[in-house]
């Protein structure tokens, strides 16, 4: 039976303006409710179009804990199908990706096509006469849609249209894609994966945390960069930085570095490959003011975008957060390559990924260490009931709609994330 504390009426008491109860991280029952009310209710990122360009291409991923196949059928249409045979639930597809017209169950040989239809049942005369294969196609997400190459799916028939869900986040997804002179990034250079003992919300929050960077990443921002570029970059995440913590609404949020003048620090000299790239961006976009806005993002110090609940665009990286259990999280990190640029631009993007996001990099391992220590402290300390999310409450500014903005070391983004969490966890039907 569900703990009465987590009922729609009682739950908001565990999420206050300035604090959140620890049980929302550590109680497995909350995790199960999140899978139903968040991951099966709203839109979840499942993959990028460049990963499944051709008819028959597929990749396997998850929506919450549910394994799914993202497939482009032979007509070119996208499907997100539960990766379990309709007969007895056996996993249909063991591969991470590939191209095939049919998915054949290895147990009893049921065959499904790339659109999920059941097209063959061995010894079919053993099925009762009323058996209708049309009723036993793969279970599919109710909605699949993509925005600028980013594919999302939802199990909720009544979910609002994807563009409404993305809202303010759409503009930043577009900017991330428009950094590529073709207008689309390419996700074909592989992936690095990590997992940690801890809750998925830790990675969500960390991705939007400007406050930790100068401390957790001190050895990189202060020490390595001192040697590499002759100065510390800690000021970009200091209390006097013009960068911002922004809640965009619907849980989407931003660390916005665009007001930080990177060129003033690093110099404005550009290699030819970068000049050509930026000219390619200008040539691709009609609105030249927008083109300059995109170029300022420059794949470096532009913004970190969270598309709630499971997608983060951060520098060159597409980060996908996959909850496994309340105390187990997997994260996939893909470098996003650009199209129609000199090869050296993309090589630099791959190397930048290894520099900060790989398992032996100068960034991610220190974050993951904090996730572990946070879990060790949080999960074993019931006497410490509340986690604080109060930074900047006194100085954040509310913009239009659900937009809030404050200084980069504030927790404005986090409060937006928790407002959305409460909304989804207490909603009756839609969203």
């Amino acid at each position: 039976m569900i703990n009465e504390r987590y009922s729609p009426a009682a739950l908001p008491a565990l999420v206050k303006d300035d604090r959140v109860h620890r049980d929302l991280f550590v109680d497995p029952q909350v995790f199960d409710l999140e899978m139903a009310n968040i991951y099966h209710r709203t839109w979840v990122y499942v993959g990028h179009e460049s990963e499944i360009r051709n008819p028959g291409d597929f990749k396997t991923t998850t929506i919450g804990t549910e394994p799914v196949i993202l497939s482009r059928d032979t007509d070119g249409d996208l499907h997100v199908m539960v990766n379990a045979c309709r007969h007895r639930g056996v996993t249909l597809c063991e591969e991470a990706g590939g191209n095939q017209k049919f998915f054949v169950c290895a147990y009893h040989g049921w065959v499904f096509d790339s659109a999920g239809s059941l097209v063959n049942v061995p010894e079919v005369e053993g099925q009762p006469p009323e058996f209708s294969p049309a009723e036993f196609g793969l279970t599919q997400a109710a909605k699949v849609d993509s925005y600028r190459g980013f594919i999302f799916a939802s199990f909720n028939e009544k979910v609002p249209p994807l563009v409404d869900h993305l809202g303010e986040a759409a503009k930043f997804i577009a900017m991330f894609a428009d950094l590529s002179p073709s207008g689309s990034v390419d996700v074909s250079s592989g992936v690095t994966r990590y997992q940690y003992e801890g809750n998925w919300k830790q990675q969500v929050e960390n991705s939007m945390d400007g406050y930790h960077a100068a401390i957790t990443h001190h050895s990189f921002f202060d020490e390595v960069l001192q040697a590499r570029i002759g100065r510390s970059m800690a000021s970009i995440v200091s209390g006097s930085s013009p960068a911002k913590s922004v809640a965009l609404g619907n849980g989407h949020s931003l660390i916005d570095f665009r007001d930080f003048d990177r060129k003033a620090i690093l110099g404005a000299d550009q290699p030819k490959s970068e000049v050509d790239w930026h000219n390619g961006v200008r040539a691709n976009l009609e609105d030249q003011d927008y083109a300059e806005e995109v170029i300022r993002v420059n794949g470096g110090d532009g913004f970190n975008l969270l598309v709630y609940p499971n997608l983060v665009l951060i520098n060159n990286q597409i980060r996908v957060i996959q909850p496994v259990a309340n105390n187990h999280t997997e994260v996939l990190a893909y470098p996003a390559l650009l199209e129609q640029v000199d090869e050296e631009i993309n090589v630099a993007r791959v190397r930048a990924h290894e520099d900060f996001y790989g398992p032996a990099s100068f960034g991610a391992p220190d974050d993951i260490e904090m996730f572990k220590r946070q879990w060790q402290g949080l999960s074993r300390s019931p006497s410490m009931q509340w986690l604080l999310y109060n930074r900047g409450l006194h100085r954040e500014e509310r913009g239009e709609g659900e937009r809030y903005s404050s200084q980069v070391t504030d927790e404005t983004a986090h409060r937006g994330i928790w407002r959305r969490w409460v909304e989804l966890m207490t909603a009756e039907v839609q969203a």
Partner: protein
Amino acid sequence: MNPETRQQIEDFLYTEARLLDQRDYEQWVALFAEDGIYWVPAGDEADPNESVALIYDNKKRLEERLIRIGSNRFWAQQPVTQTCRIVGNVVATEAAGDEIEVRSRLIMTVLRRDRKELLSGVCDFRLRQEGDGYLIVNKTVRLIEREQHFDNLTFLI
């Protein structure tokens, strides 16, 4: 390989592994040539420019690692990871001029806090003769676990 060269190469590989086990990273980085590359692929790729790797370091980046190792805020190595490596099945695969290519197998136990893991793989070294010894021009480690999740390889393979 003549027995004398074999002995030299094996001694070199054992030393290389021992320096990592002892976390003597300064001496370990010094084994790399100025144009040396240290590569731990994340898949089966042949071209590190087309695919993201678990690790892809040139000498400059190897030296930057020493800054982090010397830092008192290198959290991912507090506590340190303890490792114990066995290097074996050493074969020379190619020799040309002053360079030799050597393949070996690696099995290592990895211990951090209370978690113990086993990593295994094939190491390909390209070594350049330098005076009495060798410098590493390329070290590539293809772990059998390379497509798994990793949370921390900062101890280096």
